[in-house]
């Protein structure tokens, strides 16, 4: 027999704020649970595995800092982090600068601006497997267009993707990645440009400011929030470079047995090869966390410097 008091105890609170809070938490609970199960648990598990040896088949064995010490001694890991830092140093400013330049050109009221925007965005939606083959063909030392042009211009040709120098291979990766990602930056910058009030530019014009002065003193400062966002996103994107390396290096070695020559390797490929090629899942998680720590430090630094140069409209 159910007593009447039970239902009265289950009744919702009378205040509107409390009711809204309950409904708010209630509605978001499934997604919070999903996030906890699908993100929170794997993150904690991954952090634990970074201090173990784990082959995926047997229970993890706690090894303390052994993986981290191995990371500091592993020539492949040191090369991987050096390579990705180099790629980021080229890719982040180049993509940001080029994206800004193209966005400014497209914002000049060109008739075919929409079409050009679509063209610039095309590489971003093309799969790396397809465009990677194109880049490999372009930079082929014997049959590639790049060397053919250089040869015709009596300039020295290069081995490019087959070069023994790590900075040549990674330089091509940075260029290819810039070409592929610049469309996104253009979209972000165009959106930023469209949000700049016309009155400001008109007022400057009335006051006698030329286009260059308006660009320098009005457009660029008001675009700094977009620029900041592009810089942060590009930094994160650089750290996640994976498929361009597989495609531009030929890929087979990495996926088969977990190794690439040191001039080609980056952290994501290293952790994939160690984890899924060789079954060293503990060490792979250590690499993943080391990469995360590096990227997080960079993003925090960017956030710290944000106040010095980013202008938000109040």
């Amino acid at each position, binding site marked *: 027999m159910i007593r009447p008091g039970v239902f009265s105890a289950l009744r919702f609170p009378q205040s509107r704020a409390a009711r809204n809070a309950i409904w708010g938490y*209630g509605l978001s609970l499934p997604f919070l649970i999903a996030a906890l199960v699908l993100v929170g648990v794997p993150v904690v598990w991954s952090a634990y595995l970074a201090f173990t040896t784990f082959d995926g*088949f047997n229970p993890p064995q706690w090894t303390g800092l052994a993986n981290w010490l191995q990371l500091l001694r592993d020539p492949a890991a040191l090369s991987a982090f050096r390579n990705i830092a180099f790629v980021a140093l080229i890719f982040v400013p180049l993509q940001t600068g080029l994206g800004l330049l193209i966005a400014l050109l497209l914002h000049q009221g060109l008739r075919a601006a929409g079409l050009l925007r679509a063209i610039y965005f095309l590489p971003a939606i093309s799969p790396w497997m397809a465009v990677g083959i194109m880049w*490999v063909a372009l930079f*082929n030392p014997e*049959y590639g267009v790049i060397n053919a042009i250089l040869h015709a211009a009596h300039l020295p040709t290069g081995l490019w993707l087959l070069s023994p120098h790590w900075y040549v291979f990674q330089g091509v990766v940075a260029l290819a990645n810039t070409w592929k990602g610049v469309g996104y930056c253009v979209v972000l910058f165009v959106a930023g440009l469209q949000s700049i009030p016309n009155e400001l530019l008109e007022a400057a014009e009335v006051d006698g400011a030329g286009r260059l002065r308006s660009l320098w003193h009005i457009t660029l400062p008001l675009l700094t929030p977009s620029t900041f966002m592009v810089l942060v996103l590009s930094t994160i994107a650089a750290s996640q470079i994976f498929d361009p390396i597989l495609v531009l290096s030929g*890929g087979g070695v990495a996926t088969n047995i977990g190794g690439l020559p040191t001039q080609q390797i980056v952290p994501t490929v290293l952790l994939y090869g160690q984890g899924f*090629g*060789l*079954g*060293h899942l503990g060490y792979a998680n250590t690499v993943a966390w080391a990469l995360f720590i590096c990227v997080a430090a960079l993003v925090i630094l960017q956030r710290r410097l944000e106040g010095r140069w980013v202008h938000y409209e109040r």
Partner: protein
Amino acid sequence: LNWIPRSRAGFGIVKRAAVMVAAVALVAACGGTSAAGNGNAVATSSDQVSITIGIPLPSLDMPSPLLQQFEQSHPNIHVNTIETTWGDWPAKLQALNTAGQTPTVFMYDGGTVQGYGAEGLALNLKNFIKSSHLNQSEYIDLNYSQDSKGDIWGVPQGYQPVALAYNKTLFDQAGVSYPTDQWSWSAMINAATKLHQQTHTCGLITDHDITAGWLPFMWANGGVPFNQNVTKADFTSPLVEKGVQQWESLVQAGVICNESTIQANQNNLTTVFGKGMGAMMLMQYGQVGGVLKNFPSLNWDVTALPRGVVNEIPNIANPWVIYKHATPAQQRAGWTFLQWWLSPKTQDEYAADGLAIPALRSAGNYLPSTPAHLKQAFVTAPAQYGHTMYETSKWGDWEAVAEPIFLQIFEGQVGVKPGLQQVNTAVNGVLNGSSQG
């Protein structure tokens, strides 16, 4: 937007319904993943058992008529298959295992199988083989996956020996006699050099890996990179260095196709050969079908791989493995499948598919009839001179640290001597346990 209720009470009903739908969806999603995803689930009937077979392609034609025949002849065993490309298979297997969906039976590279045994993934088949009616003498080597302790971690799915493929048209153009199974290693190198000079193509196509790349060159020059038990590597010995130096010099001279030519053909060596860009190729048996299919008008043949000082031919078997943690019923069903695989009828039909040299010797009579000297090159000669690839439980790990450096040597990015020193240090690090690889 007429469906939105205007009263507060009505809005409450919508909210409650939304919460319930979301909760049900979440529970359903979580439940569905675990129930539907278990490929190893055993059927409810005690007589029925489901097994999952993992297949790295193209080791079988999928969908496989052979597997259909197995199911028809064994109605109590239901077969699910999981397949992916050869290169992606280790990652797929790792992911399946992490998800608790390891296939009951699966195959992969012969070099890695002892590692699966050491990791506790593979079932020891020693007692199964001992108590079976399989006649060892009828097979090339049923104990191929036996480790130093005598445990057997798989049975051969098929063999992939290396032979010498040659383009008759280019040989005719250069006025060079076709190779024979009596050719010496130096005769092959001399012919490759002449073919390169006369036809302006590569004289020889090699891989940059162990089987059809650096190891045959080491052996031909008398170099043996490991001690007998494969517990210590010696990649810096003068004879090993001589072999790799020969390989690298021929690449630099354009006699062996360089990486730039291979890359221009999507890293596919058979495409380089099929297009007539190379006169000869160190070809594994599994590559024959690709040439026949994609280049039907190519005028070519194969012969036994010439030998040098170490009179041996690389020959690797890719074994079937039974998952150690499958249920006993699944393990028995898996062994039933392996016995069926090794039976004469199945072996004959598999031979006719042309994907691998079957384990049963007599099935060699059913191999495809083209190219003309296929059987002599891929069966007769390997039976006489075939040698394994130093398989141990650490094969996968030392291979992983060695191959990137050999690739750099092949591409001319690292000199032979410093490269081999790097290989030696890295491989010994793996073998003595100071490095994971």
